[in-house]
């Protein structure tokens, strides 16, 4: 099998399988079919990875016939968005789609130059492809069990799963296409397809909330696409090219190029739900959990940061780069702070996603070899951990009936396995030596280097966001593990496919963190070198070293095993050593959290979480944060022109 065939499989197979699972209405038949598809995707992506890893960047020029097809599909999509706007009487969507329907043919029709290469697949692309195909496929498998329960819970009859799986699976193809594309027209097509899939997946439940959220997601993403079209127009007008690689390696860094790149980055920000565009991602959590997991971890938002990262070599050491770094750090800080005040688990995770994407964008803006490598590390590990956490929360929601953190109190006794996986996920998001924090560490190390005038603001915002992250995750973990001696036994319903997926992701999160040295040295560093940076990391002894720091991988793992794993296995209490908690002496007995009231009644103790809403109130903070976000974006564009 040639590499081109693999690319074809990775991009086209999801659409074919999506279409087929639309036709297959029987769940029993769809299940083995989708599992087989996932296996094929995982194998194909690994294979392609090895091809590119061994033989270097792959370029490919499919037959020019595809260009016509793409133009046709693009027109269809824009027409469909216009139709959606009109039927929903959503004037913003109508306006944006109408603008696209005029400007897109205007730009693309007169263009007849042969684009070369159409597909440009380097290590960065295949890393993204691996993340999409591996984690995305696992989420699709998870969805098989989940959606059956979901429809039982919501009494959906007749089943609408075929529509769901059509869009869910096609999403993977669109994402793979997006990261392979080198022609801006191809990129635009896949960009629009992800918008379409996202729109349909969010509105899947057809509740009023879902419809509203889907329309919001649609108009925000269309706004991003408008910037993309304007960018393409500028690129054609000024440089007569639609090839990303030509654009970023043209060598002449002037205001015209920077404005084009700034527009593309702006598009990336909308997709990555950066402030002030965070509304659509927060709304998107009304969708069934696999959708949230997919949107937040491996697809959609990662498309946004991928685009910024892909373009980063084009604006090295410019004011634009500094502005992007400041913007990303700002988003990281404010969304981390906002998350402290949230009690809705999915909302906490959504803010955490936006924060981490901000961190990745900040790294892209810092734009040194170390920063770019840190960004790639973050993309990989964040996808794993966040996918895991969303799926866990969804499973908890199905078993507990709530996604509120307050209702997860003491879950460790009711759902021990699930809570254990959730704790692994959170620890992997929050503490060293796990991958996400390794990425954050590398990010702070990179941000400390005075490459821009404003580096001190960037690093200050990063450390403040980092401290906030600790608080909101630790608070949540605290609710999960809080339990009394009288806690009742487990009532866990373990669906094999769903639990299998969760286990696989948890093992991946921990295992890959342990293998971070080979991962960084063999994959991430070469990927950064391939896009034109110097190596960020080198190996010193057993540690992974940056030019001014070192991360001792396995000693830290030994420490964590000694600190948590061994005590958890060894520490046991004899029955005589168990005692009640202190309650001013008015406990009714030793084992129950019940106290005697003033009139001799028995009162059950309730403990509640604290969210300090007088300080971290979303509603009152949002207008300031959004205003600051808009100002920073304006600065970004003004800085380019000056």
């Amino acid at each position, binding site marked *: 099998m040639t590499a081109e065939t693999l690319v074809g499989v990775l991009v086209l197979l999801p659409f074919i399988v999506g279409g087929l699972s639309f036709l297959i209405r029987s769940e029993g038949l769809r299940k083995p079919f989708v599992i087989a598809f996932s296996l094929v995707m995982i194998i194909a992506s690994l294979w392609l990875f090895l091809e590119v890893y061994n033989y270097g960047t792959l370029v490919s020029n499919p037959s020019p016939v595809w260009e016509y097809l793409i133009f046709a599909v693009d027109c269809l999509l824009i027409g469909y968005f216009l139709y959606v706007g009109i039927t929903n009487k959503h004037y913003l969507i109508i306006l944006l789609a109408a603008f696209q329907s005029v400007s897109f043919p205007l730009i693309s029709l007169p263009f007849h130059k042969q684009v070369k290469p159409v597909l440009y697949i380097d290590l960065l692309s295949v890393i993204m492809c691996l993340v999409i195909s591996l984690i995305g496929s696992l989420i699709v498998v998870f969805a098989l069990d989940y959606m059956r329960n979901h429809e039982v819970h919501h009494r959906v009859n007749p089943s609408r799963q075929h529509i769901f799986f059509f869009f869910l699976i096609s999403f993977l193809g669109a994402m793979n296409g997006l990261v392979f594309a080198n022609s801006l027209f191809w990129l635009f097509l896949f960009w629009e397809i992800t918008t379409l899939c996202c729109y349909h997946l969010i509105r899947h439940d057809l509740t009023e909330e879902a419809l509203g959220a889907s329309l919001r997601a649609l108009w925000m993403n269309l706004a991003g696409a408008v910037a993309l079209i304007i960018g393409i127009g500028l690129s054609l007008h000024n440089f007569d090219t639609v090839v990303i690689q030509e654009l970023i390696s043209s060598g002449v860094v002037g205001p015209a190029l920077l404005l084009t790149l700034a527009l593309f980055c702006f598009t990336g920000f909308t997709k990555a739900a950066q402030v002030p565009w965070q509304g659509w991602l927060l709304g998107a959590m009304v969708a069934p959990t696999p959708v949230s997991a997919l949107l937040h971890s491996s697809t959609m938002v990662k498309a946004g940061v991928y685009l910024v990262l892909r373009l980063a070599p084009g604006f090295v050491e410019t004011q634009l780069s500094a502005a992007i770094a400041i913007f990303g750090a700002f988003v990281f800080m404010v969304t981390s702070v906002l998350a402290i005040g949230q009690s809705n688990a999915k909302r906490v995770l959504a803010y955490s996603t936006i924060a981490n994407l901000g961190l990745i964008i900040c790294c892209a803006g810092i734009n040194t070899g170390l920063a770019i490598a840190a960004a790639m590390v973050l993309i990989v590990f964040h996808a794993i951990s966040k996918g895991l956490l969303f799926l866990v929360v969804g499973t908890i929601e199905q078993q507990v009936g709530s996604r509120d953190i307050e209702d997860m*109190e*003491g879950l460790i006794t009711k759902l021990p396995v699930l809570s254990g996986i959730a704790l692994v996920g959170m620890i992997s998001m*929050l*503490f*060293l030596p796990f991958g996400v*924090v390794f990425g954050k*560490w590398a990010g*702070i*190390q990179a941000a*400390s280097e*005075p490459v821009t005038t404003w580096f*001190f*603001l960037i*690093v*200050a915002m990063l*450390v*403040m966001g*980092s*401290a*906030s992250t*600790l*608080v909101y995750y*630790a*608070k949540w*973990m*605290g*609710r999960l*593990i*809080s*339990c*009394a*001696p009288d806690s009742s036994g487990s009532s866990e319903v373990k669906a094999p496919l769903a639990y299998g997926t969760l286990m696989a992701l948890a093992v991946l999160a921990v295992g890959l963190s342990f293998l971070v040295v080979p991962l960084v040295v063999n994959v991430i560093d070469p990927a950064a070198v391939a896009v034109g940076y110097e190596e960020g990391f080198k190996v010193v*002894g057993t540690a992974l070293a940056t030019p*001014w*720091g*070192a*991360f*001792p991988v396995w000693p*830290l793992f030994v*420490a*964590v095993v*000694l*600190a*948590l794993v061994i*005590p*958890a296995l060894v*520490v046991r*209490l004899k029955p005589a*050593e*168990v*005692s*009640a*908690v*202190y*309650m001013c002496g008015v406990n009714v007995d030793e084992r129950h*959290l019940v106290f005697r009231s003033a009139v001799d009644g028995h009162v059950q*103790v309730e*403990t509640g979480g*604290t969210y300090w809403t007088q*300080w971290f109130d979303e509603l009152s903070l949002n207008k300031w944060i959004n205003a600051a976000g808009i100002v920073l974006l304006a600065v970004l564009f003004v800085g380019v022109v000056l």
Partner: protein
Amino acid sequence: MNGSDILMALAALALAPLIGGILRGLDRILTARMQGRIGPPLWQPFYDFIKLCAKSKKASHRGPVVWAWAYLVLTVTAWLLFVLRQDLLILLFILAFAGASLALGAFSVRSPYAHFGAYRELLQMLAYEPILLLAAVAIFLKTGSFMVGDVLGFEQPLLISLPLTLVAVLIALGIKMRKSPFDIAASEHAHQELVRGVYTEYSGPTLALIELTHWYELVLVLGIISLFWVIPLWVGIIIALSCYFLEILIDNITARLRWSWMLTVGWSLGVGLILLNIVIVEFFGLGLRL
């Protein structure tokens, strides 16, 4: 890692609690003297520790005991990273993991008092984490490295160019050492207060573990302060000890303040001072020479 490193690590492992315990004893004596009392003997913390070890075990369930061990082992790890001259940022991240373990241990019991303490402990971390991390960045900007080893080899005393950073670190130190006005979660001294926050549900040997961890923590934090003057090292140690004395003094002349005030001080004054220091050093070139 070679033989002398291993020896040094072992020595540090054994000496830190000894020094930490003596410093705590000194603290109690000094505090008593400042209040017009005589105070306990110097070895009092060790008597307390051994007595606690000899008491019977009691716990709500095994969760808090596991987290207490995590608190100890992770703090010791941070201390060893310091002694073995490793990365300051890594050390601080591990220290944050340790601090969170203490809060999580309190969370793991369904006790209203412990939960109060745990939330306040997290607020304390929210206030001091940015200061400590930014201080590491300031040190990096002067020495060109995050490695403790390279900081130890840096010829020029950091205090000359980073005095404001030291002031900010003192704020963080006060919070970390649970001293007034920032002893929000539970004072280091055995005051009666909300039944003593995070420690409410700990007793006997587990409480002794936590006490031991505090000794390691104290020595580590003072060690970080002594980095501000490493050649000759005894000047740094004197600076660290005077900072400790200053904290005891402040502890005795101030009252506890609200957490919101602590957060404001940490995020505005603490972070602001370090940023000002960085700006002065980086852009005005001041503090570069002795």
